[in-house]
């Protein structure tokens, strides 16, 4: 019998963690076996309302539970934000291509994240830390609007102690409590010491940050093929069939969602 590619598997909300005023992390327990490669995404069903694409923010090595970090912005995410422990959701996936981890071995991995874009990057970072010795160096540059908008607040102290990891954070608008950088996340790039020739940059964040982050990386010497971007478009199927996520000849859900910049830079409207 063929598989119904449109049918989600059941999952239960086991815990809801409030990250910021509009971002929550949902810990999900799945009713069937499920695994993913970091960078792949899922379609999350709110029963009776619909689905949306989200990237797991937990480690791909964690197989018992799956975490997704979600910003409340509309219908489905709004409903998700009102959910409590024990509520039922559904999951399809994982879809798309993950980060090519082994291609990063021996390199200096620069992570550039903004806002809720930290969600997939946390999963990526946890995957890197799992085999930390294989990478020359890991640098995380993370920007938020205000100190209150920083996600995974409890994880940062631990990350800052990691030997092979350097963490730099910025906020667009600081308050008295903020001891780190003030300014757009791209200013952090002026502070990092990195051998660009032997580096890759992994970028995820709001569209405007992705665009200017990429330009800045090019500016300081990264080549388009060294820059890995998480592209976002409207999605419905996640399977490369419904057409919604088209970007030129690509379907982002199937050919991405992660693309090196050289693959997409000449597509008209790539940043729109």
């Amino acid at each position, binding site marked *: 019998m063929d598989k119904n590619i*449109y049918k989600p598997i059941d999952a239960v909300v086991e815990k809801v963690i409030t990250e910021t005023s509009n971002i929550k992390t949902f810990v999900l327990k799945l009713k069937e076996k499920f695994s993913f490669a970091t960078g792949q995404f899922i379609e999350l069903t709110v029963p009776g309302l619909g689905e949306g694409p989200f990237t797991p923010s937990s480690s791909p090595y964690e197989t018992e539970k799956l975490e997704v970090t979600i910003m409340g912005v509309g219908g489905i995410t709004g409903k998700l934000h009102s959910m409590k422990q024990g509520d039922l959701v559904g999951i399809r996936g994982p879809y798309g291509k993950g980060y090519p981890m082994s291609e990063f071995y021996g390199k200096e991995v620069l992570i550039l994240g903004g806002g809720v874009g930290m969600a997939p990057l946390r999963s990526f970072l946890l995957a890197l830390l799992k085999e930390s010795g294989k990478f020359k160096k890991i640098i995380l540059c993370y920007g938020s609007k205000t100190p209150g908008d920083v996600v995974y607040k409890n994880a940062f102290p631990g990350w800052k102690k990691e030997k092979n990891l350097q963490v730099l954070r910025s906020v667009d608008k600081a308050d008295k409590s903020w001891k780190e950088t003030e300014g757009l996340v791209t200013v952090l790039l002026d502070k990092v010491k990195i051998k660009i020739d032997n580096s890759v940059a992994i970028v995820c964040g709001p569209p405007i940050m992705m665009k200017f982050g990429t330009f800045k990386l090019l500016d300081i010497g990264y080549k388009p093929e060294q820059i890995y971007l998480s592209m*976002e478009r409207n999605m*419905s199927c996640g399977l*490369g069939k419904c057409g*919604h996520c088209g970007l030129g000849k690509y379907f982002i859900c199937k050919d991405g969602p992660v693309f090196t910049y050289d693959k997409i830079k000449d597509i008209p*409207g790539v940043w*729109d």
Partner: protein
Amino acid sequence: MSIYYLTKDSWKRLLTGLTETYDIYVLKENENKLFYELLSKEDLSGDGKIIYGKARSVQSLKSFFHLYAEDVSNLKNEKVKRIIIGVKACDLKALAVLDKMFLEGDYIDPFYKEKRDNTIIISSDCTEPRDNCFCTLLGGKPYAEDGFDLNLSPLKEGFIVEAGSDRGKAVINGNKSIFGNEAKETLNEDRARAREKITGKVNNKNKDFDLKAEFWKDLSKKHDSSAWAEHSEACVECGACTVVCPSCYCFLLADMPEKDKFKRVKYQDSCQFSGYARVAGGATPRPELYERFRNRYLCKYDYRPESLGIVACTGCGRCIEACQGGIDKREVIIDVLKRKK
């Protein structure tokens, strides 16, 4: 290639036998338009008028395989065996696009596959192209060379029948007494002559459209042409062009509550609608009408040839006939290619 010759009477005897196993759809004419209808008793007794030749129907094969709306919550186990008769070459080309989208890659659409697996497709040569037919401009022909199970070429008071697949051969082998021996080679020549004549007719209908072979390959460089915005002014955003198009595959999954569970429905969708690509927060990569208008052309002539290896327009002319704004895509393309900017 082996071909058979069947008189209309033998053909009807064949259909009579096949009705025991299959739902059979045939073409009927209404006000100069062809529609697929379920084969009736009268059709077999001789009173009903089945059309084999002429040209393409109003509905395309999409209406059999990629439905306007389909409940995809659960797999169904209702294998309906069907035969569709009178399918034209252009629609087979479009079916190849749908097949690539729904049957290839890492994921197979089980709803599409089930229908495809249980349907026999019997194509037939065109005999009277419609005014907006332009298959030949796209390198197509008004007769099928592949993609069918059986193909009929109307000739004199009967048909030349050719098998194009194992499924087609099985129909012939299962009805040896009706098909008899293979037809003489000379019939092949008669068929070739008829086909050449009809190809000339399609060419003739398009003689005023100056498009060179493989013109679509130049469209990728014409993204910024001013012609897109100008021609899109006549577009009323009804989406008819994509609804009638045999190769437009886009769909949207929509959920609704149902008892203690929920229902998931797969609806045909259209890139012409402003909400199609909208993301949370209201942003969309194609906010302007001309950008959506252009997208339909680039999808068919640039993106899908790149990703699927085939042009996703067959020249069936349905979108020209359906357009409320009277837009003829041939004219748009000529203008886009002609202009420097």
